[in-house]
C-alpha cells in the first residue's frame, strides 16, 4: 500500500508502467470533434481503493472516467490521445479489444438503466454473453448478495428489473457489473438520481465493494466524496473549457489541507 505517499507522486508521469496500479493514465488528451475536452491528464489509481473525481460541471470528469474502459469510443466524434494502463497494460494498444477491456473494467451509470428483462436475466445476461461457466443461479445470488440486494429481490427474481425502486435498480446495475467479475468498477455519479436513503445504501455498498474491487467514482456531491473515498482528484477547466487535473491526493489531504487555492474554494463552496 502506498497511501502514505505525498500527493505529488501519484500524479507524476512514470517512466515505466507499474503493474501495482489499477489504472495509470499518462498525458491523456481527449477530443470531441475538434473540441479539446480534457488535456494532459496523468493520474495513478491504486487498487482496492475508492478514488473520487470531483469538479465543476463540464470539466470532463465523466469523459475521463469513460476513457478508463474505452466507453468514450461509442461517441462517434470522440478521439483519445495518450495512454491508459490497466495493471501495466496499455488498453489503447491497437492489439487490445475494447470489448475485453469493458469486461475487466465495469461501469455503473448516472441514471439506473436495468434491461427491460427479469431481475435474474439482468444479472445473468452479462455473465452469460461473456461465456461464464458454472452454476448461473449461484452466480446471480452471489452478485445480488454482493450488491446488498438479495434479501429484497430473492422472492421475485422473475419480475422485471424496471419494477424495482430507483435505488434498487441502481444496486441491480451494480450486481450486474459484479457478475462479470471485473477488476475495476467505474461509477458515473451513481447516486445523483437517488434520494438520501438510497444514496446512503449505495455509499455503504461502495465501501464494502472496495474490499475486493477498485472503484473510481465521479460525483458532484462533496460530502459523498469526503465520506466514501480514499483518494480524491479535483478537476477544473481552463478558459477554453478544456478540463485538466488540478490536484490529486488522499481525500483527507484534499479536504483539510488542499495545496491549491482553487481546490479549497471549490470544496468550501465558494465557486462551482
Amino acid at each position, binding site marked *: 500500500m502506498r497511501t502514505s505517499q505525498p500527493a505529488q507522486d501519484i500524479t507524476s508521469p512514470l517512466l515505466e508502467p507499474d503493474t501495482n496500479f489499477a489504472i495509470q493514465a499518462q498525458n491523456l488528451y481527449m477530443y470531441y470533434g475538434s473540441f479539446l475536452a480534457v488535456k494532459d491528464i496523468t493520474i495513478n489509481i491504486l487498487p482496492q481503493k475508492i478514488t473520487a473525481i470531483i469538479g465543476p460541471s463540464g470539466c470532463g470528469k465523466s469523459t475521463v472516467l469513460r476513457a478508463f474502459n474505452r*466507453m468514450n469510443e*461509442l461517441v462517434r466524434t470522440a478521439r483519445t490521445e495518450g495512454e491508459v494502463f490497466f495493471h501495466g497494460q496499455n488498453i489503447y494498444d491497437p492489439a487490445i479489444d475494447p470489448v475485453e477491456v469493458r469486461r475487466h473494467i465495469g461501469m455503473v*451509470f448516472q441514471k439506473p438503466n436495468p434491461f427491460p428483462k427479469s431481475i435474474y436475466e439482468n444479472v445473468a*445476461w452479462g455473465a452469460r454473453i461473456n461465456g461464464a461457466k458454472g452454476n448461473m443461479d449461484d452466480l446471480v445470488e452471489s452478485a445480488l448478495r454482493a450488491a446488498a440486494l438479495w434479501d429484497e429481490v430473492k422472492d421475485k427474481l422473475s419480475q422485471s428489473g424496471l419494477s424495482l425502486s430507483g435505488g434498487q435498480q441502481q444496486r441491480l446495475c451494480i450486481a450486474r*457489473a459484479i457478475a462479470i467479475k471485473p477488476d475495476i468498477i467505474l461509477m458515473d455519479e451513481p447516486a445523483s438520481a437517488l434520494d438520501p436513503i438510497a444514496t446512503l445504501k449505495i455509499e455503504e455498498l461502495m465501501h464494502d465493494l472496495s474490499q475486493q474491487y477498485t472503484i473510481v467514482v465521479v460525483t458532484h456531491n462533496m460530502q459523498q466524496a469526503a465520506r466514501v473515498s480514499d483518494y480524491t482528484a479535483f478537476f477544473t477547466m481552463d478558459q477554453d473549457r478544456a478540463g485538466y487535473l488540478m490536484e490529486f491526493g488522499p481525500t483527507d489531504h484534499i479536504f483539510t489541507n488542499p495545496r491549491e487555492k482553487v481546490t479549497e474554494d471549490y470544496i468550501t463552496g465558494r465557486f462551482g
Partner: protein
Amino acid sequence: MSSHLPQSPLDNHVTSNLPGRHRASRIWRYIFLGSTVIGIIFLSALLLNISNGVIGYVAIENKIQPGKLVPAGVTLEELDQDALRSILQANISSGLYRRLDRDIPFTDRSVDEILKLINQYVIEPTVVESWDLYTSLFHKDTVLTEVAQNHPNAELRFISWLNGQFLVQPQNNRPEFSGIRTALLGSLWTIVITILVAFPLGIGAAIYLEEYSTDNWINRLIRTNIYNLAGVPSIIYGMLGLAIFVRAMAPLTSGAIFSLTDSPTANGRTILSASLTLALLVLPLIIINGQEAIRAVPGSLRQASYGLGATKLQTVWHHVLPNAIPGILTGTILAISRAIGETAPLVVVGASTFIDFDPTSPFSKFTTLPIQIYQWVSRPQAEFRNIAAAAIIVLMILLLTLNTLAIAARNRYIRR
C-alpha cells in the same frame, strides 16, 4: 361575490383577455371536431357505396327451364350420372362436349360437377337486371313492376354477390359464374413473398444505417435517397420491375433455371416478379420505420450492454431489436397495406387480366384482387360492377386480417 380572483397591485399592465382566449379555444375545438366528422362522413359514404352494390334484387332468366329437360315428376338432382351426361350431350354442341371431355373425362366427374355444367351450359341462368341495396329495400314495388313489365319470364331473387361460390370459383366471362379464387390466391402468394423478401432486407438495412454506418456524406446521401424513394410513384417501380425482374432476370423469375417453368407463356411475368417489384416498393417504408424504431431505443440500454463487455451484435440482437420490434412491426403493417392494394406496378409488370387456374408456385402467372377489381369495373355489363364491389369487400377483409395479425404480434411484444 366577484367572479374574479383578487388583483395583485403589481399586474396592472395585464388586461383581462381570458374570455377571448377561451373563445378561441372553443372555436378551434369545433373546427377540429368538424374535420373529424367530415372524415368520418367520407369513409361512411365509401363503405355504403360499396355495400350498396353487393346485396340486392336480381332478375334471373333461364334459357331452358330445368323442368323441360327431364320427364315430368322428376328433378335433375334425382338423376344418376349417366342420365345427366346424356342430357348435357343432347343440349350442347358436340365440339363443347368433346372439349369438356378432354379437360376432364366425364367418367371422372362427379354428379355435382355434371349438374354444375348443365346449369352453366344448358340452363344458363342469366342476370338480366340487378338493383342496388337501397332500391331493393326501399323501392321494392318499383323493382316488382319493372320485372313484371320487362322480364315476365324472370325469377326475382334477393342475393348477396359476395357468397361462398364467389370466393371459391375461378374467373369466368359471365359475372354470374365469376369468382375471385384466382385473384385471392394470387394476392396471398404475392403478399407473402413480398414480406419474406422486404422484411429481412429492410430490417437489415435499418440496423446497418442506425447502428453500424458512420456519419459521412455517402451515408447521408443514402439516407436522404431512401426517404425520397418512399415517395416515388408506384408505376415507376412497375417500370423498374418490368425492366429488371421480368426482362433481365427472366430465367430466374420464370423459374427456367430451376426447370420449374409453370406456364410457357408466363416468361418473367410471374408471381415472383410481382413480389420482387412490390418488395422494392415497400422497402423504403420498412427501412424508415425500422430506423425510427431503432433510434427510439434509449442509448442508456446500449451503454449498459457495451459496459458489460457485449459486442455490437450482442447489443443489437439482445437489446436494440427486442425493444424496436413494436415500431418495426408498425412499419410492416404499413408496408402490407400498401403492397396489397397496389395495382399500377402490377399492370406494368404484367399481371394477367384473365386466368382461371390457381397459381401453384412463385413461377405461376398471376392476377391479384386490385387487378381483378380494376378489370371488372371497366367491363360494360352492370353485373360486373356488383362483383367488383364484392371483391372490394374481400380485399378489405383480407387487409384487415393481415393487419390484425401484425398488430397482435406487436402487442405481444409490447406486453413482454
